[in-house]
C-alpha cells in the first residue's frame, strides 16, 4: 500500500497508522522540518511550490522502486507546499518491512531520491532577501 500525497499541512501522527502492518517488524520514518538558521542566517520561512501532476508521478515511481527493492509492506511519501515556518514539518517519508535493515535503507532512499528528482522548489526567505535553494551552482 502506497500513500503518495502533496498536502498543505503534514500531519505527523497519521504516518505511523499508514505504515503499520501485521507483517512489519520495522517501521522507519523521516521528517524534514524548517530549521531556524541556514549558514548562520535567521530563516523567516520556507516557501514550497510544485508541478503537482509531475511531482506525484515522480513520488509514485520512487515509492515503487523502494517497494520493489526492499520488499516493503507499506510506504509513505508526503510533501507539503505553501509557506512553512520554523519547526514545521515539510516532508515525511516512511517504509514498513519485516526487518529493520530494509526499512532504514528504504527510508533513506526515499528522501534522498525525492530531493534529487521530484519537481518541488523551495525558496528560503530571510529578513532581507529570498533565495531559490540549489538554483545556482
Amino acid at each position: 500500500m502506497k500513500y503518495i500525497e502533496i498536502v498543505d499541512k503534514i500531519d505527523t501522527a497519521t504516518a505511523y497508522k499508514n505504515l503499520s502492518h501485521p507483517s512489519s517488524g520495522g517501521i522507519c520514518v523521516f521528517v524534514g522540518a524548517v530549521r531556524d538558521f541556514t549558514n548562520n542566517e535567521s530563516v523567516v520561512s520556507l516557501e514550497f511550490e510544485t508541478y503537482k501532476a509531475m511531482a506525484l508521478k515522480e513520488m509514485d515511481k520512487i515509492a515503487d522502486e523502494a517497494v520493489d527493492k526492499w520488499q516493503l509492506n507499506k510506504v509513505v511519501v508526503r510533501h507539503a507546499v505553501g509557506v512553512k515556518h520554523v519547526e514545521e514539518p515539510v516532508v515525511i517519508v516512511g517504509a514498513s518491512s519485516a526487518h529493520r535493515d530494509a526499512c532504514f535503507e528504504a527510508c533513506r532512499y526515499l528522501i534522498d531520491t525525492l530531493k534529487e528528482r521530484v519537481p518541488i522548489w523551495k525558496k528560503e526567505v530571510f529578513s532581507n532577501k529570498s533565495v531559490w535553494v540549489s538554483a545556482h551552482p
Partner: protein
Amino acid sequence: MKVLLFGIAKDIIGASVFEVPAQSKYPSTVKELKDVLVVLFPEFNKLSSLAIAVNSEYADENIILRAEDEIAIIPPVSGG
C-alpha cells in the same frame, strides 16, 4: 506553444507561463526549446541544471515536441 514555469524559471521570465513568440520558428525538440530559452533569457545559463518535462515526465533532449504536449521548464529541484 505554451511552456509551464516554476520556481526560479518563473522569476527569470516574469510570468507563470511562457508563450513561444509566434513570429519565431517553433522549437521541434527539447534541445531546440532549451536553445530558444537561453537565447531569449540568458539567466538560464547560470542555473545548476535545466531540464524540460514533456507530459509531466523528464524528457531527453532529442524528444520531439508536439502541439498537444504539456511542456514545462524544470529548474534545479529543492524539495525536502
